[in-house]
């Protein structure tokens, strides 16, 4: 009987996404080593830095729930950043750039979805190829030189605060809640979990499998467009290298958050904490004087540990 209670407890603990544990551990480390940093102002700045990643994670988890993947986010962010910061559209207002970004993202997502679902091309290959093409396109257009400045309205909005919380952070929380409601309350959410669990069975239950995958990719593209806008606002200048590591970090944070291919048990909050863990990780490592190479290795280790954790869990169930 004690054994049953014990194994029940272990089961329950294993069901918590690893991101929560990582987040708590980092929080404890930080509160011991640098307790003065744990206030709204400092943490707000740090979390604000990972908001583009956090938004892209919303896109990544959506496609991963239907057993797909989207690595094109890097190219999308780079292209949109270039179009806003270069002189292609001189003096264009905000109301022009925002719909433009959303349309580019949506279009690329639609293309990805069509290729993956209808043409049955591997999602990794399609989205990676799209990203490489977009990166090449930007390098061609800019001839390798960094483009100009981002219109100041972007950074003006980016630097606002409500109740001493940075607006981008609030925006990210808002989008996450929206995504959680969308998945929990719409028929599309049921389609997504069905296709992820068993695409064949989904087909025989009348779920439009192809359309679901296309819609998931299209929405992911739209969200990547939003992430591109926030990323562009955050750096305020154009760059030919911006956002290239974001897609793989997004995959990592999603897995860390308990959303593995075809399985969405971590919910939306799991990957949310996955992103927060990365934010804290950067802070902790910076305070300990560890540079980018060390950070990269730590990121890799976390991805690896999350994968091992899931291996243990699958064996148990």
């Amino acid at each position, binding site marked *: 009987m004690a054994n*049953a209670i014990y194994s029940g407890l272990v089961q329950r603990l294993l069901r918590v996404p690893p991101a929560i544990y990582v987040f708590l551990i980092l929080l404890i480390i930080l509160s011991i080593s640098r307790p003065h940093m744990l206030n709204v102002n400092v943490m707000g700045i740090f979390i604000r830095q990972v908001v583009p990643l956090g938004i892209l994670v919303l896109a990544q988890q959506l496609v991963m729930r239907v057993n797909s993947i989207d690595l094109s986010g890097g190219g999308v962010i780079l292209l949109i950043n270039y179009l806003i910061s270069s002189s292609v559209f001189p003096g264009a207002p905000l109301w022009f750039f925002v719909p433009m970004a959303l349309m580019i993202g949506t279009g690329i997502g639609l293309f990805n979805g069509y290729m993956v679902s209808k043409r049955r091309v591997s999602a990794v290959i399609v989205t990676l190829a799209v990203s490489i093409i977009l990166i090449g396109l930007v390098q061609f257009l800019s001839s390798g030189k960094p483009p100009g400045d981002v219109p100041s309205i972007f950074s003006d909005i980016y630097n606002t605060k409500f109740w001493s919380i940075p607006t981008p952070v609030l925006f990210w929380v808002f989008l996450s809640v929206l995504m959680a409601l969308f998945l929990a309350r719409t*028929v599309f959410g*049921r389609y997504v979990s069905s296709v992820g*669990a068993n695409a*064949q069975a989904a087909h*025989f239950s009348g779920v439009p499998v192809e359309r679901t995958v296309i819609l998931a990719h299209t929405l992911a593209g739209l969200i990547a467009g939003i992430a591109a806008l926030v990323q562009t606002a955050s750096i305020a200048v154009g760059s030919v290298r911006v956002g290239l590591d974001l897609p793989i970090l997004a995959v990592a944070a999603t897995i860390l958050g308990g959303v593995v291919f075809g399985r969405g048990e971590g919910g939306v909050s799991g990957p949310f904490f996955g992103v927060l863990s990365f934010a804290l990780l950067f802070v902790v490592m910076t305070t300990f004087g560890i540079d980018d190479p060390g950070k990269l290795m730590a990121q890799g280790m976390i991805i690896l540990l999350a994968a091992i954790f899931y291996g243990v869990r699958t064996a148990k169930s």
Partner: protein
Amino acid sequence: MSNISKAFGGSVALDSVSLELKPGTVHALMGENGAGKSTLMKILAGVHQPDSGEIRKNGEKLVIPRPKDALDLGISTVFQELSLLSNLSIAENMFLGREPITLFGTIDYAVMEQQTIEALQELGLTLDPSTLVSQLSIAERQFVEIAHGIKADAAVFILDEPTAALNAADVAVLNKHIARLRDAGKAIVYISHRMDEIFENCDTVTVLKDGQLVGTRPLADMTPDSLIAMMVGRELAHLFPERSTEVGEAVLDVKDFKLEAGSQPFSLKLCRGEILALAGLEGQGQQKFLRSLIGQFVPAGGVALIKGQSLKLPVAPSAGVRQLQALGVGYVPEDRKEEGLFLGLSISHNITIGLHSAHSALSFAKDYLKNITDTMASMNVKAAGITAPVHSLSGGNQQKILLGRYLAADVDVLFIEEPTRGVDIGAKSEIYKLLRSFAEGGGAVLVLSRETIELIGLCDRIYVVHDNTIVSEMRAEEATEHKILDAALSA
């Protein structure tokens, strides 16, 4: 095996069960799903370890820590679940883990393929050993699996539902080999839900119920009725419900349908109030016809009307199931685990997904609580709750959930491939009653099944399919297995 007990978590799967196998006999192991048959055999095969009790062979105490050790001890198993790797060839599957090696340390494909050909030939199969398993039919896979198990030079053979995916002709081949093994002095354990096979093949029967031993009897003293009574603990007077007498208008009207370019055209009608069967040997076109209605097979020509509306042939594969659903037709696929259920998701998700799929993706998802509880109650599903994952249910309850999804979606026509595959006899009877009351409520059912007895007992009318066309039509009450086989083969 004596006094074997085994519990998983809190539930007792086996409670002090003993079993004695004698050389030169075929020993039937029977019981409803969840009675503990598979668990007992998995202990003998080294997959599970018993909590208590012991296993002796020729008086010697055995410990079987791993499946490989069971093979070394002369215990060979063909499991119910298809366990072949579909991306490997037949030969690679047969020799998995013990591949013959050449002088240079590479795999000796020549020896492997030659021995595979021989093993398959013993079962009367002429398959190319380099064929990928993914390209085989389910029956062929089952045969490869059997060849895999039988090939090993063992003293004890465990056949766990070897015929679940086989048709009558294949079963006859298998029976011949079982007799051969018996005559060679082997001890064989035979697990099956099919009565006719048990009486044809076996000498002794052991019945389990709820993890406990009911008894072991020589089959010569038993009748099918007394065996069923032993299994369910009561006489099952009517396994099949009464047939209906009234039929309404046609809901499926097929004319001049040609499956292949060279095959004979055929016509058929399915009417309200009736249960109709497509019978015959396996793979003669029954499934091809049914799947051509959802676009998974491209027929050569013909007309299919559903409730007076003509289906555009060939049907688009991605829209086929939804198109039928919009017309009030449910399509219940054959393979419950691969094509039917979301095993890791909850009962409620599995039931309601059919209801959800009638709505557009961006609409609000209702909870359909009443539909779920009504379905669970009317189908007598035994489960911990509606949030329990479907893989935690027994085979019979899983099948009920699958049917429940289509019934809950308020269809009035059902196309069913294998209504009771791998389901115990109690659940079978319940499913038959459900289908009959569905038909009596104005519904219509078209059934395929490998179990001819089931088709005869359940249905009102039977079309015999052979060589991609319908060769005969008969009233089910006049049909026998012999007549159906005769009609198929004399065509």
